[in-house]
C-alpha cells in the first residue's frame, strides 16, 4: 500500500494516526492529510490514494457523507473509519455504505496491522 489519506478535523489525531501507521509498517508510502470530508473529496479525486482512513464526526462534510459521495460517483477506493464512536449501529451503517472496516479510538499499531492488512 503506497498512498494513504488520513481525514480528521483534529490535527492531533491526524498525527497519531500517521504515527501509528508508521509503527504498523505502512510508513513507506505517502501519508497525506485532510481536515474534513469536503477537503478529502477533492484530495481523493486528485491523488487517488490506495486507502482512506477517515474520522466519522467532522464539520463541513462528515465521514459517512464523504464515503457516500465517493461511492455515488463510482469511486471504490478502500475506505475505513477511525473513530471514537464504534457502536454496532455505526459499524452496520459504515459497512452498508461501503466501508471496509471501522477502527475504534483508542487504537494500537497492532490493531492497524490486523485490520488494514496488506
Amino acid at each position: 500500500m503506497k498512498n494513504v489519506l488520513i481525514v480528521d478535523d483534529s490535527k492531533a489525531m491526524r498525527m497519531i494516526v500517521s504515527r501509528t501507521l508508521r509503527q504498523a509498517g505502512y510508513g513507506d508510502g505517502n501519508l497525506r492529510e485532510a481536515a474534513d470530508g469536503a477537503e478529502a473529496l477533492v484530495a481523493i479525486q486528485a491523488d487517488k490514494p490506495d486507502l482512506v482512513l477517515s474520522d466519522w464526526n467532522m464539520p463541513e462534510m462528515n465521514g459517512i457523507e464523504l464515503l457516500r459521495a465517493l461511492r455515488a460517483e463510482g469511486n471504490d477506493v478502500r475506505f475505513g473509519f477511525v473513530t471514537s464512536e464504534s457502536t454496532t449501529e455505526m459499524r452496520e451503517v459504515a459497512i452498508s455504505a461501503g466501508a471496509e472496516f471501522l477502527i475504534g479510538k483508542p487504537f494500537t499499531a497492532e490493531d492497524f496491522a490486523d485490520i488494514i492488512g496488506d
Partner: protein
Amino acid sequence: MEANDEINELVGDIWGSVLGIPATPADSSVRVEELRLTGFVHIQGDWEGTVTVDCPVPLATTAAAAMFGMTVEELTKDEIDDALGEITNMTGGGIKSMLEGSCKLSLPTVIEGRGFTVNVPGAALVTDLNYSAGGSWISVRVLERVDETGPTSGSELILRTGA
C-alpha cells in the same frame, strides 16, 4: 463490568496507551483554583447529556506534546486545545458506545480558565470520576439531561454493563 469500571478502563487506555501517561482512579476532585482546561462533548438521541474532561493546563500541555511528538515549548495554544478536544472526543465516544439506543456525539469544545464551575442547564451530574496522572489530576464527569419527568432515559441504568 460496572459502568464506572468501563469508564476507568477507557480513561486508562486513552491516557496510558495513546499518550503514555498512566491514569489511575483517585479520590481527588476538580481543583477549581488551578488554571485548567475543560473539554465538552454533548450526546443527543435516546440518551442526552454531556461528558466533560477537566485537567490542569500543564497536564494538558504534556498530553499535547505526547500527541504531537513535540516539546511543550513548541506547542501553540490551539494545539493544546486540539489535543484536549480529541481526548474529550475519545472519552465521550467511548461513553456513548456504552449507551443503549441511538445517539449522536457533538464536536468537542474546550474552555480554559480558573475558578469556574461547569453547569449544563437542565442536566444532573450522574458520574464524577477522578484520576491521578502525570503527577496531576484528571476529572471525567457525565451529566444527564433531565426534563420535568426525570432523566431523558427514564433510568440511570442506561449504561450497558459488560459491553
